[in-house]
């Protein structure tokens, strides 16, 4: 296999991004639980402690509020930091620091103080983790002015976006998906960065636009392949960052296809999917042929039972079936 098509895991892509950036910028300090010698609960810092030591890989006890606040304070004082919440759920212990301090600081100080901090956490349903370890509240973050929100779906995107986050002047929430850590993808050896606010068209199509984020991208892509066999040409777009959002690439696609389906692992009520549908209504009202559709998790706490959990989150079958329903609707008469 040539270097150009080297395949690595999502987890290793994150480690590579960190290693490269921590070598390049010796001010970067990484704070979290079990991220030192242990290498991270998800192996997300594997090998870094050996190279960078205790000063730069700072293990803490269980104190998300204190550790996140400290990461933000250090960033305000000029030390770039990463704070690893491990499970995104645990960021709730520290949400006041993220929302009230980090996100507000640039504005409150008239741009005089920046907080170059990356808030890292793994979200989402995976193998019956249950209600306390499965949340996907990136829509809350996206509703907080001052926070950038990154949702990488592939190893390639994770590495390129994480590196960009580690050079960004402000707070960035880099939200991985727990069930993606062992997935594999092509990641070039040579350095690259992915700018924020550039959506990726994963598959081109003409009948409808499917927008999906994070793990839902994989489901959307699989659904699109099946739909193609069944005569439906779906365009699949991954925004990759929801703040900032590549509004134009999404609306251009909707204008082209006239149909929109959004796949979102959060519950639909007040979701990011809802925001995309609002955007479609504002920007593509004339071009929409049928009402846009949200395919989201059900509005219930994450169930433990595999049967119930599978019922709660979107699946390829459900996406295919609901897309067919959308395609059956007659076009609007203008």
């Amino acid at each position, binding site marked *: 296999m040539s270097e150009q098509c080297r395949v690595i895991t999502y987890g290793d892509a994150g480690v590579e991004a960190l290693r490269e950036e921590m070598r390049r910028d010796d001010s970067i300090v990484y704070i979290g639980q079990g991220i030192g010698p242990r290498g991270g609960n998800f192996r997300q810092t594997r090998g870094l402690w050996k190279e960078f030591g205790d000063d730069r890989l*700072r293990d803490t006890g269980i*104190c998300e509020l*204190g550790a996140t606040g*400290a990461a933000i304070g250090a960033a*305000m004082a000029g030390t770039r930091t990463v704070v690893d919440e491990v499970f995104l759920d645990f960021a709730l212990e520290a949400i006041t620091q993220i929302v009230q301090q980090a996100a507000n*600081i*640039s504005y409150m*100080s*008239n741009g*005089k103080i920046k907080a170059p901090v990356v808030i890292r956490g793994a979200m989402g349903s995976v193998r019956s983790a249950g209600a306390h370890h499965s949340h996907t509240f990136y829509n809350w973050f996206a509703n907080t002015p001052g926070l950038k929100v990154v949702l990488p779906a592939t190893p390639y995107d994770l590495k390129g976006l994480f590196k960009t986050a580690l050079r960004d002047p402000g707070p960035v929430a880099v939200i991985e998906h727990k069930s993606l850590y062992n997935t594999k993808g092509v990641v070039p050896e040579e350095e690259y960065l992915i700018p924020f606010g550039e959506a990726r068209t994963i598959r081109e199509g003409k009948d409808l636009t499917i927008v999906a984020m994070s793990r839902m991208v994989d489901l959307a892509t699989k659904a699109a392949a099946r739909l193609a066999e069944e005569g439906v040409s779906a365009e699949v777009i991954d925004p990759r960052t929801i703040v900032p959002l590549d509004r134009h690439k999404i609306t251009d696609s909707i204008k082209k296809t006239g149909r929109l389906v959004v796949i979102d692992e959060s519950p639909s009520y007040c979701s990011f999917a809802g925001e995309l549908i609002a955007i479609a209504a504002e920007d593509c009202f004339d071009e929409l042929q049928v009402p846009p559709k949200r395919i989201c998790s059900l509005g219930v706490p994450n169930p433990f039972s595999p049967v119930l959990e599978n019922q709660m989150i979107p699946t390829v079958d459900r996406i295919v079936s609901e897309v067919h329903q959308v395609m059956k609707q007659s076009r609007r008469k203008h």
Partner: protein
Amino acid sequence: MSELVQAELISKELLLTYYKKVLELRLFELKVQELYRNGRLPGFVHLYVGEEAVAVGVCSHLGIEDLVFSTHRGHGHALAKGVPARIVLAELWGKATGSSGGRGGSMHLYAPEYGFMGTNGIVGAPIPLATGAALSAKLKKKSHVVVCFFGDGAVNSGSFHEAVNLGAVWNLPVVYVCENNLYATEMAFRRATKNTSVASRAAAYGMLGVEVDGQDVVAVHETAQAAIQRARQDGGPTLIECKTYRYVGHHEGDPGTDYRTREEVQQWKQRDAVKLARKRLLDAGVTEVELQAADQEVERLIDEAVEFAEKSPEPAADTVNEHVF
């Protein structure tokens, strides 16, 4: 002659400087109170009247690159750290010339150019932030220190516990200064906690805790000096509990009399920071005439701040979207 001056612990000149600073903080807040009551200032304000000796005694040891994190009751900390009164007042007025161009206000005053890292609207929140800033200072190895002010209301919060613990275990150059004014809004400290000695809590984190008379600028000066020197020399953090009192209500508009007696307020005023500093100067041989000259100098400074803030422009409405990221 004052014993302290005699023992050359503090020069007459320095004492005079302290007196003027304490008075500046006092007169500034009384002016803010007047402007606020006359409906001139938007938002709401929490005044520092009565606690001035703490900010002055601590900040006197800090250079411009040492950082201060403050509270909702933080105008005095900003002034003591060297932020000019005129840009603090302009910010309270929401003017474009204010320290945050009118985007912050009383509880979001930021002046990093003076090493002032902000007042804060969230009780307890600055303690983790200051701890992180101290981590940054330690890693930069330039002997800078960070001071975090907070009230007794903050010490029962999780923020205090988690952050002070990190500061201690990482041996950071930070001084935690608790201004124990006995009331968190209206809640008496003795009703909020079984152990009313904040300083004693330091032992729980394996760090030094000291208690000091927060009404006496010289006492605060001495205690803070030792703690700040220790922090500068990589000796780790200190928790200082300053026993103090606010003469005014929690915020302007709260009479502050529903939960404490007038006698208690009067009793604390007997040991007023301005009076105590003035007495020390008189004891040290400074004349009434010299003191009156000092008073006038401070009064002029406040008058100039009012004139500056009042005449300053409002921010342009179309700049509302600037500086979000």
